[in-house]
């Protein structure tokens, strides 16, 4: 148990985190959360746990309810029903008629717009939570200086907050959320307003900070890369419901629904019918009654012969070979190159199979050009089959 983090001024008395860990429990618990706007459920029956010092990502397209969920956690929205526990306090419960105001929840939050107060200096922005809590001035100064140092803004304390770049604003927002060492920090798409290079750097820094300061984070994002890189667990959401809740690796490698697969960058979908069901979730899918593809069944309901199914395949998980290649292993599709675009790290091809288009990321060594006849070799483990109407 790593309690000698900086600024930790409590003595050996076990805090909520210790108790949680001892019980093997979670720091944040969300149970059957529902938020209605009129007749529309923005968040519907959402439940998840966040163990101490882990990062949970709420991932999904815009309008999926991820931000509303986060705002319910912060107390900025009053849910319609459900229960939220932070630490050992129930902060919202429709059953027990509990609603704790945001200022009483002891959480940190980084907003999408950063919400830097333009009429204050950087130091006053960062020290605000402490001064509201009536911490004495010298301690505020000290802790603000420490945290600014930590986020790499050591020099900027006296600067007016309206004169900051986007990246600096982001760091100030982060420092302000962390300055009172909350156990839970909420992030509402904090990296979406930064340019690509800065985003990657901040992502790495965030990870380092989290390891140093030990806090539980709940992270809202629509960027799958961000969610994969930062989190211990991903809550993938769609129209207010949880679509999949799993580790990043599992979500990425075995999306449980066609929607998950698409959202995680499976850019190809092949439609067909189940020809035969094998053991261990193997299926053979017949495409237009012409070719058969061996696939792994990832769908919820077990497949039956004749079911309409969709197979999701990533563009970088197939092999592109000349049409005349002889060794006949596994399933494949034939077609010709329609478009070849050089993208630096790889070459992106669109292959026309006659009845549909297929995206392939090819490596630099074997180059094909427009019109070439090719075959796309598919491995069973990389073909994920679902019922066709499941999206």
């Amino acid at each position: 148990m790593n309690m000698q983090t900086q600024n930790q001024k409590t003595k050996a008395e076990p805090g909520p985190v210790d108790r949680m860990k001892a019980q093997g429990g979670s720091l944040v618990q969300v149970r059957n959360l529902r938020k209605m706007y009129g007749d529309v459920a923005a968040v519907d029956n959402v439940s998840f746990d966040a163990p101490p010092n882990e990062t949970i990502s709420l991932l999904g397209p815009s309008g999926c309810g991820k931000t509303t969920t986060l705002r319910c956690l912060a107390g900025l929205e009053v849910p319609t029903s459900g229960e939220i526990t932070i630490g050992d306090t129930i902060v919202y419960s429709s059953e027990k008629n509990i609603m704790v105001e945001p200022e009483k929840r002891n959480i940190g939050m980084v907003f999408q717009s950063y919400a830097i107060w333009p009429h204050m200096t950087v130091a006053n922005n960062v020290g605000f939570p402490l001064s509201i809590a009536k911490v004495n001035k010298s301690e505020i100064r000290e802790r603000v200086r420490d945290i600014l140092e930590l986020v790499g803004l050591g020099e900027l304390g006296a600067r007016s907050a309206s004169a900051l770049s986007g990246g600096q604003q982001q760091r100030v927002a982060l420092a302000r959320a962390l300055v009172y060492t909350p156990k839970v920090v909420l992030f509402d798409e904090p990296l979406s307003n930064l340019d690509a290079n800065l985003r990657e750097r901040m992502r790495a820094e965030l990870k380092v900070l989290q390891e140093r300061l030990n806090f539980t984070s709940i992270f809202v994002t629509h960027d799958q890369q961000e969610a994969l890189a930062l989190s211990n667990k991903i809550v993938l959401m769609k129209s207010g419901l949880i679509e999949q809740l799993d580790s990043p690796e599992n979500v990425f490698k075995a999306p449980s629904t066609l929607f998950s697969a698409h959202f995680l960058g499976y850019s190809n979908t092949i439609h067909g019918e189940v020809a035969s069901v094998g053991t261990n979730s193997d299926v053979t899918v017949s495409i237009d009654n012409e070719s058969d593809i061996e696939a792994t069944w990832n769908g919820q309901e077990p497949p039956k012969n004749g079911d309409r199914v969709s197979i999701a395949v990533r563009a970088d998980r197939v092999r592109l070979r000349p049409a005349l290649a002889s060794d006949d292993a596994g399933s494949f599709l034939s077609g010709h190159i329609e478009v070849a675009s050089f993208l630096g790290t790889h070459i992106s091809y669109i292959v026309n199979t006659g009845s549909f288009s297929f995206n392939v990321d090819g490596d630099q060594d074997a180059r094909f050009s427009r019109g070439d006849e090719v075959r796309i070799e598919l491995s069973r483990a990389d073909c994920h089959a679902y019922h066709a109407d499941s999206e």
Partner: protein
Amino acid sequence: MSTSYAEKRTSVFSGIKRYNGVGVIIIVYAILGLTVVYPLFVMLLRAFTENDQGIGFDKIVEVMFRPEVLDAFKITMITCISAVVIATVTGVSLAWFVARTNMPGKRLFDALNMLPFYLSNVVGALAWQAIASPRTGLLNKLFEPLIGGPILDIYSMEGMIIVFGLFYTPYVYLFTLGSLQSMDPSLEDAARINGAGVLQTAIRITLPLSAPAILSASILVFVTSAGAFGVPLLLGGPGGDKTLSTLIFTYVSSYPADFAGGTILSTFLFIFTAGLTLLQIKLLMGRKFTTITGKGYRPKLIDLGRYKWVAFGFNSLYLFLVIGPFCVLALISIQDAWVGSFQFDRITFEHFYEVVFVDEVARRGLTNSLTIALVGATIAVLFCFSLAVIIHRTNLPGRFGIVALSMLPLTVPGIVLGIGYLIVALKTPLYGTLAIMVIAYVAHFLPTGLRNIESIVISMSKELDECARVCGASWWKAMQKIILPLCIPGMISTWILLFVIFIREVSSSIMLYVHGTETMSVALIRMMESRPLGVSAAFSIVQTVLLLVCAFSVRLLPTSRRD
């Protein structure tokens, strides 16, 4: 912070109740009901009840067909429509010159064209009397030897039209300029590339795109001049042309007071202006969002060639017609007696000494107006800020009704609201106090204040105060530490605007004043009846300087800091 999660549990609804008590909403509605709705209601009620005998329409028919009413209606219509035409043509041209062309000196013109907006048109009317009163006017004296009579009699419809036109041009100018500056310049560039000339582009692309702004400004000018009181009183003259507003005043202030006539005419005027204002609001709503999508870059300026000096001349003439008479007034104020031309041996400052230190009415007007304006602007700004916060930073039930209710005075001409307040006040100890005037002013200009302050609050991201909440601040603390400081610059400029409006207010004051509570404008009107021109002129100059100081301090304000 090493405090652990405190066991502070509140119920789901106490969080809302604590800050957003329904009590607050009830108080707000009570205030608005009492100050905005009730006086109007009383006025309308009075119009429809004859001698307290229940609802009757005979009186209404009788009043509406009086010959002087029909005359006043005709005069009002002609005056207002002509004023709208002058203000629109001038305002649109000036805005186009400043925003789109290479007119010389346009930076200076841009600053000066808004000047009449801050000045009092009553003083403007007085200044024009000095220029064009039939016998002693400067202009008429100049032309008398040539044409053997006055070239322009300011005591006429033409006179009213000139003053209204000149002083309401800035309204159209401001609206049009805003629309031109927020317009995507590539729309006009595209027309040029497709072969349209400068004038064709202006008429077929620019003008139609600004049409909603221009039209709603025109309607605003119409409503304002139909409800205006000071100018027709001064220029219509005692026995001369009466507009609806001066006729209302004549009915109510005659002895015995004809409240039936006054309220019936007021109702008629109210229905008329309310209809037009609703039309204007409808027009504004349609283009609300198109003005905000302004591009940051400046459009390429149109080269007018040698016509740029025509534009320069036109703008100079406009400013000359506004500022010139004020200069003449200033000259008159430092002459011991005005003999139609400036005499160096007649220079004196005794009129200024008189109005500031001696004349009782003038001194009362000055102190009363300053008191009302200081107190009124402060109350209005604080009240409007509270309303804006309630509307946009709480989830109280019924908060959007506040907006509709607060905008009601927009449809009510000052003289109409004044009558309502007079009828209400007569039965209370408030009658004849400055307090009733403060309340009437604040109520009448609630829309102006609320719209200004609302736009500041709306422009601030909700995340700014939500973040403060998450950081541990209560709702009150978040408002106090975040929203209020960020609104201060906008509140100051709104305060100055309201101060200016209150300093020169005429229509409600003329209904509500008694001996002892004269405002500056009332004092000025009374002085013109009985004192030499020099004294009125000096008093006007004092008021004008006060207003100019306000106009310049608005320019000096830092642009408000917004997120």
